[in-house]
C-alpha cells in the first residue's frame, strides 16, 4: 500500500533535483525550469498531505501556488527577453552589473 511517506519521498527527491539545477546551470531558462520543478514537488507534498489529513485546504493552496507560478512565468520570461535584448545572452554569468 502506498502511504503518504512514499509521495513525500518522491517530492523530496524532485526538490533536490531542482535545487541542484538552480545551483549549477548557467542558462537562465533552465534555472527557471528547475524552479518550476521545485514548485511542483511542493505541490505534490501539499496534495499528498491534504489526502492524508482528509483536509481540502492544501489543494486550495496548490491552486494559489499554480497562480503564482503562472505570474512568475510571465514576468520571468519577460525579464529574460529584456535582458537578451541588451546583452545578446541569457547566461547568468553575464548578469554582473551589481556584482561586488
Amino acid at each position, binding site marked *: 500500500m502506498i502511504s503518504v511517506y512514499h509521495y513525500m519521498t*518522491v517530492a523530496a527527491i524532485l526538490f533536490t533535483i531542482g535545487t541542484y539545477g538552480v545551483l549549477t546551470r548557467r542558462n537562465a531558462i533552465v534555472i527557471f525550469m528547475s524552479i518550476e*520543478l521545485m514548485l511542483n514537488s511542493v505541490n505534490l507534498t501539499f*496534495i499528498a498531505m491534504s489526502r492524508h*489529513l*482528509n483536509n481540502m485546504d492544501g489543494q486550495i493552496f496548490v491552486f494559489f501556488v499554480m497562480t503564482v507560478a*503562472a505570474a512568475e512565468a510571465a514576468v520571468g520570461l519577460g525579464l529574460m527577453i529584456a535582458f537578451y535584448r541588451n546583452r545578446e545572452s541569457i547566461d547568468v554569468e553575464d548578469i554582473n552589473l551589481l556584482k561586488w
Partner: protein
Amino acid sequence: METILFYIVALIAVGSGLIVILSRSPVNSALGLVNTFFCLAVFYVMLYAPFMAAVQIMVYAGAIMVLILFVIMLLNLGSDAGKRFTHGVVWAAFASVLVLVNLLVFVKRGQVSGAQGDVTNAMVLDFGHTELIGKAMFTEFLLPFEIASILLLVAIVGAVILTKREV
C-alpha cells in the same frame, strides 16, 4: 497494482527531472519537464484529486511550458557550449545532498498532527472533486482568490512593460 504503478511513475518522474537539469539543449530540458508534469498529474489522480490533475496538465504542461518553449524559440538558444555548461558543481552537489538528507530525515521522523479535516475519499467520489474545491474556494478562501486576481493583473502589466521596446 497501485504499488507497481506508483513505482513506475515515480521512476519516470525522477528520470525526467534529471533530464531537465542534465541535458545540454534547453528544448530537451523543457520536454523532460513536461514529462515530469504528466507524472505528477498521474500522482494527483492516484491521490483522489482529479481536478488538480486536469489543472496541472492545462496550466503547467499546456500554458507555462508553451510560454517557455516560445521564449526558447524566440531567443534561438542552441546547445550550451561544453565549457560554459555548469559551474560550482562540487559545492552544489554538497548543498543538494544536504537538502536531500534534511528532507528525508524530516519525512521519516516528522509527526503529522492537527488540521484533520472531514473530506474522505468516499466524499470525493460522491460529490465530485471540482464541487468540493469550488465550494471551499468561493466561501472560505474568497479573499485570497481576489488577491490572486490582482496578482495576475499585475503580472500581465509587468510582462507588457518589461518586453516593450522603448521603456
